[in-house]
């Protein structure tokens, strides 16, 4: 029985179809979830896709955080039970929901940046990165206007110490992110936020590589390994 993975559509979500396609290519069954329904439909994991939820008019992700679906998602994610991957706007929503520390702010260049970005995988002890090896370099698209990760020094130190930096920009961060951070995870390793878009690097024809597929195959391996989250020992 293939894993059922939810993809949440908020008003203004844009990469929801792409996330569903990536999951399908990886071998999962994507399940469309609607922001207005407080119902996760029994999915095994959830992707919060990229886009501009609610126009991102107040702050990126600030309004999506209060959507009915989040009332179901937040407790399940916080407990370490439900694997959640937030991509770009999804990462912003995870930070606004306090499932992940810190925040995403405007790129230091002030401009939207769309480019093929080399990342270094820093942690494989998450539900979404087990198929990579530490230090592996992957090429996936970055496309965002407010992708600069910030947190206070104590939080940054804690993330580094606990191995919760999932990926860094190789070379200097193009958006000014602190300590070149491109992605982080929570203490259980089930919730991952990532600024670049792995779902756009799953087919050689339409992406710069197929390096992004690993996020989705990692999840399937993680789910197949059993109900206990990989890094749940920290509880």
């Amino acid at each position: 029985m293939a894993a059922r993975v939810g993809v949440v559509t908020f008003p203004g979500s844009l990469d929801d179809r792409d996330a569903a396609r990536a999951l399908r290519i990886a071998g999962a069954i994507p399940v469309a979830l609607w922001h207005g329904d407080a119902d996760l439909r029994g999915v095994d994991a959830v992707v919060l896709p990229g886009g501009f939820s609610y126009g991102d008019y107040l702050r990126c992700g600030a309004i999506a955080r209060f959507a009915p679906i989040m009332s179901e998602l937040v407790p399940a994610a916080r407990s370490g039970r439900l694997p959640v991957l937030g991509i770009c706007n999804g990462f912003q929503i995870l930070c606004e929901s306090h499932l992940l520390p810190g925040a995403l702010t405007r790129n230091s260049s002030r401009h939207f940046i769309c480019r093929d970005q080399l990342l270094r995988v820093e942690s494989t002890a998450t539900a979404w990165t087990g198929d990579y090896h530490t230090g592996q370099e992957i090429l996936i698209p970055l496309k965002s206007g407010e992708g600069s990760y910030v947190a206070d020094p104590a939080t940054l130190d804690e993330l580094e110490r606990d191995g919760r930096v999932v990926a860094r920009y190789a070379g200097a961060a193009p958006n000014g992110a602190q300590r070149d951070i491109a992605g982080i995870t929570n203490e259980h390793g089930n919730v991952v936020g990532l600024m670049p878009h792995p779902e756009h690097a799953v087919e050689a024809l339409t992406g710069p590589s197929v390096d992004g597929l690993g996020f989705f195959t990692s999840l399937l391996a993680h789910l197949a390994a059993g109900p206990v989250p990989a890094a749940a020992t920290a509880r």
Partner: protein
Amino acid sequence: MPEAPQLDTVAKAAGSPDSPQPFAELGMKDDEYARVREILGRRPTSAELAIYSVMWSEHCSYKSSKVHLRQFAEKAPRNDALLVGMGENAGVVDVGDGYAVTFKIESHNHPSYVEPHQGAATGVGGIVRDILTMGARPVAVMDALRFGPLDAPDTRRVLPGVVSGISFYGNCLGLPNIGGELGFDSGYIGNPLVNALCVGVLRHEDIKLAQAPGPGNKVVLFGATTGPDGIGGASVLASATFDEESHAKRPSVQVGDPFLEKLLIECSLELFAADLVVGIQDLGAAGVSCATTELAAGGTGGMRIELDRVPLRDSRLTPEEILMSESQERMMAIVSPDKLSAFMDVCAKWDIVATVIGEVTDVTPEEAERGGRLVMTWHGETVVDMPPRTASDEGPVYERPIARPSDQDALQADTPDQLPRPANDAELRAQLLRVLAAPGIADPSWVTRQYDRYVLGNTVLATPHDGGMVRITDDGERGVALATDGNGRYTRLDPYTGTQLALAEAYRNVAATGARPHAVTNCLNFGSPEDPGVMWQFAEATRGLADGCRELGTPVTGGNVSFYNQTGSTAINPTPVIGVLGVIGDVRDRLTSAFPADIDDARLYLLGTTRDELGGSAWADVVHGHLGGLPPAVDLTAEAALGRVLSAGASLNVLAAAHDLSDGGLAIALAESALRGGVGCTVDLTGDPFVALFSESAARVIVAVAPTADAAFQETCDRHAVTATRIGSIGGDALRVRHATGGFEIPLTELRTAYESTLPSVLDGE
């Protein structure tokens, strides 16, 4: 609260025939105003005058261009693929398997000069709604942009604003930006050209038209509320008719809300899928005036509207202001009464405000004869009672005076032959780098990096390749390719030939992706039609395009005319921008312009013939600041043959790369392909190396061929009678040029620095 202005009703208009009206301030001529009075048999009300003045404006009525645009239909090649032709919001082309695509390019030049960010943003929004209105899901956008010189102070205001507007709106809509153009010329100071193209995909059976059949059907306005955006004319009307001081000057900048447009797209597609609309029209220029008159004219001819039901953002708006408002993100649908509640439910799901503002009515045979009957009321009083067809279809048509400009002969006589040419290899090398670094040829990444090219996951090719290409379904192989081209310098020298060159280049760009060119759209950017010299340019350009399309077998499916692009009496170089759409059966066959780094000893061929043609060239412009002589000759038979070789070569897998030759000739094509592939090349030139490198002869491409594919490649060229000249090999880390008496070489790192530094050095920090 200001005092409510007096309402001008039909009854009042009938009783006060001599009341003065500000038709001249609204841009109407004496005879046009007289004709309105004749149609109505009385003076128009303020609301009617608002409708006629916007509908008969150049922008909406094409009154100066119509007589010339007719050729596109009259000379159109027979093409069974054309499902909907000119005249609708956009043409629709069959691409096989029951799928069709619709595409169109449109200008937003003047608004982008006034407020670059919002002007460009709303330009994207408008063209996307045109595509949506045909029943299609928009799947990609492109932009053809032209500015004053890169280092001009105003360019540093306009360019970053335009780019941020396109980026903001397009990215937020979730449409990949797959290519376009970036050009610079002093003529565009004060007249930037912002031409936006959108392409959408639909099933044949889903085509929607702007019509309002069926008496009793409801007229529903949905999307944004109506505010004072874009009202220039209405404030004239209001202030001149009523108290000068009572109306604050309304802002005329339209403000776009891409988030709302995204919801409007999803909502509309859901409405279409559930078959809940019988007719639809987007609200662009001329807003409610245009939508109501066109829908009514396309249907029974009868419609009744209660204008006071239009949801307002500013409750002080008058009927005429509502009629002229260009508030963005609005649509008008015709809905049968039994489907109204389902229609409203879909709108509610997407948080879209929808309001019934009227209904389709029957007309008597006499009314039909007059052009139908559109009645609008304002709180029960009749403010409009007119035949809608007289506004939408029967506007004035002008045969403007035409005169070949007096300086045309002198311009053509001033050939580039007398310009000093590089005397030695060092000068050749230096001039190659100079042309490569020139704005308009140099790397446009500063611009294109601000656009999302990946969203929707179907982008197969995007900038910097010759054309953009998207897969039309998530799981199929079929795709469409698009390119736009225009060269104001060529067109200035010879508008007929220049326009055909733009067509030929766009055609060649599409062919160089491996797709087969299918159909054409155009955005004709010119100066004032009241200038006989400009009108001559326009007449020549349209004749050239119509003749060229007939010869290539690619019909014009629609387009847009932008006149009055001039500062004082100085017009821009005439700039027809031509978009070509092509179809590819299997997107995996697509060709890129990057030299292959992974094929040992790949061979480099030049297809086509090089002549000494430097009139209007990038070399003459960049090195000598010269514009004169004649542009390169056009050979559309050769272009078509070249297209067949490229499409056959792609599907047979005999080509490893293809890149068209245009601005800067072979020199720039080699440099670009080398930089994109990250691998150099060595070329051996015969004849004058300067001409070989910098001539801009048309109907040429370079291709890379693997040694194993060489025989099949030669056979393909022979079959289509295209000359292939082996000019060198791919490999190494430099561009090496050899000729009979010497040669030079430029390391890729040096090429890259020249190519990539230009835009950032001026624009970073803006």
